[in-house]
């Protein structure tokens, strides 16, 4: 069979980084081809080159047998390539329909026939079982619904080759299943699909073939029926991977965090937490599993005092902290690794030392009596911390922006842990960082628990929850669906709870 | 004492400068001074230098620079230069500083010369008072500077002298250049019943003439010959022969007759002049000319400040 896509010897460099080095990739008609690789392996870059967003430094691309040279996404779209990006490319303030038709030419001259588009969109949505409301605003949609919009957007452009960059990271296991059945249906109709993921089981489940990238190079392309998880992991990382970090048995101490009937509305006034209750003791890790967008952000922000709950109580070491300012809560012993290091965790244009004192800049010894900063002691402390936490950086006075994502995250972790918190609130602590950094951060979190701190771990990566937690709670639509201890938990049950289906009540 | 007059043949060696607070194409105050500079060149053969658009903060430095370079005569075009001249002049005794529109001089080297602008406003007011039918007039000023305010007040006094029942609307627009504001202000006055409009605010006046044209009411030109700006609308212009004033000063200076005192000129000295159109009946012209004669003879008092 003739491949629909052939990428030959693609090389793409960024200043100081070779993101792709002589990459070869072939994709056949009707094939689901997985692209596997660690963070920073160059998967997104390769796809962006294919999609015309980046220009390769060298190499050739053949699509449907013809040599192509896409100068912009427009060319790629016209040729029949669709791409769903790692970060959704949707406009929150536009309607679903507008998001789907944006970039398309007008129907009568420059005017759109919205009624016609609406009809066609719904038709496609029905055909593939992708339920969407064309008139809803994207900002009001769940992440899963947003992804459906992205898929319809690509299908609507009559894509023959669909690229999906980490589509499952934000879905429930059930939604993943649905997505995969959609993908299979599409491939049976002749659509070719490139699926990027870190998740080995998904590759084995849905893909026909898989190409593994490491450090910008192709390590191997193989048929999934010839592969297993262990092999793939080894190809991906280049060594054996320690999937589960070692930890000692749990010795819970007194209750550190107690949340009762917490109700929180998000910025747009929608109820995000709806009577949530939980407790965390010293020396234990409570893992909150759940699909993104079920109130995790709001839970963390409410604990940290960044949003004000509508009702309910939060006790930190027995003291109520609802309505207290973030600073007060921090001083009472909260360490907070925020969900989004770029949004909250770091001031990217601050130096590393400035970022390291972000929570304590006003305290002695960093700040003297008259409000002057003590730059020398800040610098030496920062330098020390960077070494201790193995942050790869030339020195403490470079901007945080210049560090890789993993090292940026290490800075945040170092800052929060070095303050020896009584409660460590870790939200997506390893999102988008590479395996080495993940291992390291996990170690640090476990160390905190061993020191006696209470740890509330919120993560959408079930594997992370399973690897670290002593107890697991599942959050769904702003409520805790159920709780269980982490010895041989029923993964299937967790999956169902993540989808909002409650089987048993109360475990503990 | 001043320098002794030079010999006739050396007249061209005089270094004379003109310092202007605004751009020379403002169609008003600065433009007439620039015309004066050209007249001096044409009639006396003397090349005057000029600097335009000098900001308040630069007055002193600019005057000082001319003093430093040994200029003989420096015109400072506006009473706002008074402070700066008072500060700078004592350091440059060889330079004579002439402040336009100032009525004061100070020995040995500061003089002032002004046009009695109120006399212009008075005549305009007389004309307006004589031709109004609605007994309502509009007068627009830029800023309530003494000269402008005096002009507007004189305009009102004159109109009331014709007919005490006449009402005058007076407005300031706080601009020399916002022509649209001038127009809208004039329109508002016309809509409020004014049938003769008068404006002392450089370019803004063009706006009021435009408004008069639109509303079919009359306007009185001011400073520049504006009868042709809107024929049929502008019935007469009160002209400023400012160029003559410059020429007069330069002549006096060359003759060694310029004294460190305040001069003022008006109808009597020929610095103000009428430019009529046929729109004005002869009897009105006669009455106005009689008023001008009274002004020349000093029989009319300036408005109270």
């Amino acid at each position: 069979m003739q491949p629909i896509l052939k990428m030959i010897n693609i090389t793409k460099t960024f200043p100081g980084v070779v993101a792709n080095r002589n990459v070869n990739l072939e994709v056949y008609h009707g094939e689901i081809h997985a692209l596997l690789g660690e963070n920073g392996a160059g998967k997104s870059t390769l796809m962006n080159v294919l999609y015309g967003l980046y220009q390769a430094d060298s190499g050739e691309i053949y699509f449907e047998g013809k040599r192509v040279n896409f100068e912009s996404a427009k060319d790629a779209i016209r040729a029949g390539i669709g791409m769903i990006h790692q970060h959704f490319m949707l406009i929150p303030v536009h309607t679903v329909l507008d998001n789907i038709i944006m970039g398309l030419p007008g129907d009568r001259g420059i005017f759109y026939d919205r009624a016609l588009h609406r009809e066609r969109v719904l038709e496609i949505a029905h055909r593939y079982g992708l339920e969407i409301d064309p008139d809803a605003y994207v900002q009001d949609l769940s992440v899963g619904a947003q992804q459906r919009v992205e898929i319809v957007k690509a299908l609507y452009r009559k894509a023959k080759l669909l690229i999906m960059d980490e589509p499952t990271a934000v879905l429930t296991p059930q939604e993943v299943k649905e997505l995969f059945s959609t993908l299979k249906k599409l491939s049976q109709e002749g659509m070719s699909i490139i699926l990027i993921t870190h998740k080995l089981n998904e590759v084995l489940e849905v893909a026909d073939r898989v190409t593994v990238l490491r450090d910008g190079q192709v390590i191997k392309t193989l048929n999934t029926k010839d592969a297993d998880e262990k092999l793939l992991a080894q190809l991906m990382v280049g060594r054996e991977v320690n999937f589960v970090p070692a930890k000692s048995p749990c010795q819970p101490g007194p209750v550190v965090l107690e949340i009762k009937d917490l109700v929180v509305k998000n910025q747009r006034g929608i109820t995000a937490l709806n009577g949530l209750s939980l407790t965390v003791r010293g020396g234990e890790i409570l893992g909150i599993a759940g699909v993104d967008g079920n109130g995790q952000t709001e839970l963390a922000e409410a604990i940290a005092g960044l949003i004000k709950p509508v009702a309910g109580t939060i006790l930190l070491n027995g003291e109520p902290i609802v309505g207290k300012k973030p600073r007060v809560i921090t001083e009472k012993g909260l360490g907070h690794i925020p969900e989004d290091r770029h949004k909250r965790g770091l001031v990217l244009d601050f130096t590393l030392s400035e970022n390291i004192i972000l929570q304590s800049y006003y305290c002695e010894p960093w700040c003297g009596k008259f409000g002057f900063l003590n730059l020398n002691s800040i610098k030496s402390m920062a330098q020390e911390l960077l070494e201790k936490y193995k942050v790869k950086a030339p020195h403490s006075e470079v901007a945080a922006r210049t560090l890789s994502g993993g090292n940026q995250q290490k800075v945040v972790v170092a800052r929060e842990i070095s303050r020896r918190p009584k409660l460590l609130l870790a939200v997506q602590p390893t999102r988008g960082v590479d395996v080495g950094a993940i291992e390291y951060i996990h170690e640090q979190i476990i160390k905190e628990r061993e020191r006696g701190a209470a740890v509330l771990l919120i993560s959408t990566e079930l594997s992370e929850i399973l690897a670290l937690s002593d107890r697991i709670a599942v959050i769904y639509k702003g409520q805790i669906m159920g709780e269980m201890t982490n010895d041989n938990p029923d993964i299937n049950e967790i999956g169902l709870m993540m989808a909002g289906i409650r089987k048993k009540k109360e475990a503990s | 004492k001043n320098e002794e007059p030079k010999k006739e043949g050396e007249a061209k060696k005089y270094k004379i400068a003109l310092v202007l607070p605004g751009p020379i194409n403002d169609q008003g105050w600065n433009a007439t001074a620039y015309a004066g500079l050209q007249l001096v060149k044409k009639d006396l053969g003397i090349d005057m230098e000029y600097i335009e658009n000098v900001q308040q903060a630069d007055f002193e430095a600019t005057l000082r620079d001319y003093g430093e370079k040994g200029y003989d005569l420096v015109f400072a075009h506006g009473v706002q230069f008074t402070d700066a001249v008072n500060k700078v002049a004592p350091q440059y005794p060889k330079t004579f500083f002439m402040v336009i529109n100032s009525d004061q001089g100070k020995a040995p080297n500061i003089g002032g010369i002004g046009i009695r602008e109120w006399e212009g406003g008075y005549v305009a007011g007389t004309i307006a008072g004589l031709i109004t039918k609605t007994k309502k007039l509009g007068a627009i000023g830029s800023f309530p500077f003494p000269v402008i305010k005096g002009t507007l007040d004189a305009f009102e006094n004159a109109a009331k002298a014709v007919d005490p029942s006449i009402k005058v609307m007076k407005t300031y627009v706080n601009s020399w250049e916002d022509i649209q504001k001038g127009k809208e202000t004039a329109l508002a006055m016309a809509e409020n019943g004014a049938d003769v409009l008068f404006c002392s605010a450089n370019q803004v006046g063009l706006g009021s003439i435009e408004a008069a044209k639109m509303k079919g009411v009359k306007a009185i030109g001011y400073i520049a010959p504006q009868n042709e700006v809107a024929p049929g609308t502008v019935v007469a212009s009160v002209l400023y022969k400012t160029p003559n004033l410059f020429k007069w000063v330069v002549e006096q200076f060359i003759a060694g007759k310029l004294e460190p005192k305040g001069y003022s000129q008006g109808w009597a000295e020929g610095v103000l002049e009428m430019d009529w159109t046929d729109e004005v009946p002869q009897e009105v012209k006669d009455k106005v000319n009689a008023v001008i004669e009274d002004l020349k003879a000093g029989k009319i008092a300036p408005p109270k400040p």
Partner: protein
Amino acid sequence: MEQIFTLGFFITLLAATIRLSVPILLAALGGMFSERSGVINIGLEGMMLIGALFGVIGSYVTGSPWIGILFAIGGGILLALIHAYMTVSLGVDHVVTGIAVNILSVGLTSFIFRAMFGITTTPVKVNAFKPLAIPGLKDLPLIGPILFQQNILVYLAFLLVPLASLILYRTSWGLAIRTVGEHPKAADTVGINVVKIRYLCVLLSGIFAGVAGAFLSLGQFNMFVDNMVSGRGFIAVAAVIFGKWKPSGILAASLIFGLADALQIRLQAVGTGIPYQVFLMLPYIVTVIAMSGLVGKTTAPAALGKSYEKN
């Protein structure tokens, strides 16, 4: 005092409001397109000024005010190109660029004007737009002669409001513009040429501002005088924000500015004994109050003022 608030007063007030709001409306509509695509345009003042001059030059050279408008558009485009190149192609801070454009334009207009017409004490007059009565409407009692005998640019300006709405919300261009202003990268991924759209929108703002300037020089007058725009461009920038980046909002904002100005002029002319400066302040104070209480928080296009570098 009491006799001033007559029916006639309100009608003439309305007419003045319309005239005073037109230049602001025109420039602000252009500014809206620019800002909707993500480019702050604080150079509207300069673009209006050059439009005012070029309009007069065009009419002077050809005798036709319509060709004057074309010249004005050309002048606006000239400055807009500079703004677009600096902000879109180079990613220079939008605010400084706009300020530089304004400074440049003050010098350029004065220079060109003197070079062409010399220094005069009476203005050079050119052919301008004549009032155009709308048959039928002009015969309406009371308001007809006042509201429907404006020059054609006035009608045009108000027609542009629904047209701008139509373009922004109903067409492929409008959707592309809004997408670029919210999320240029997303626009890129669906094949919208971000650079092209931003250039077009900035040029559009130049065109609109040019016409706004020509409205002053050829619609309200038949001449150019130095600095005749007198801050209306800055008010237009304010109107864009005040109007929440929407054509209808901008219409309302422009009318409010126009009304406040028309009202203060009238009150001043009547002579109330209140210092005239208080009236001059009125439009600006009204805006401050409106911005704080009534309009409150406005959400700008998400990518406003941010440059986009593709790679």
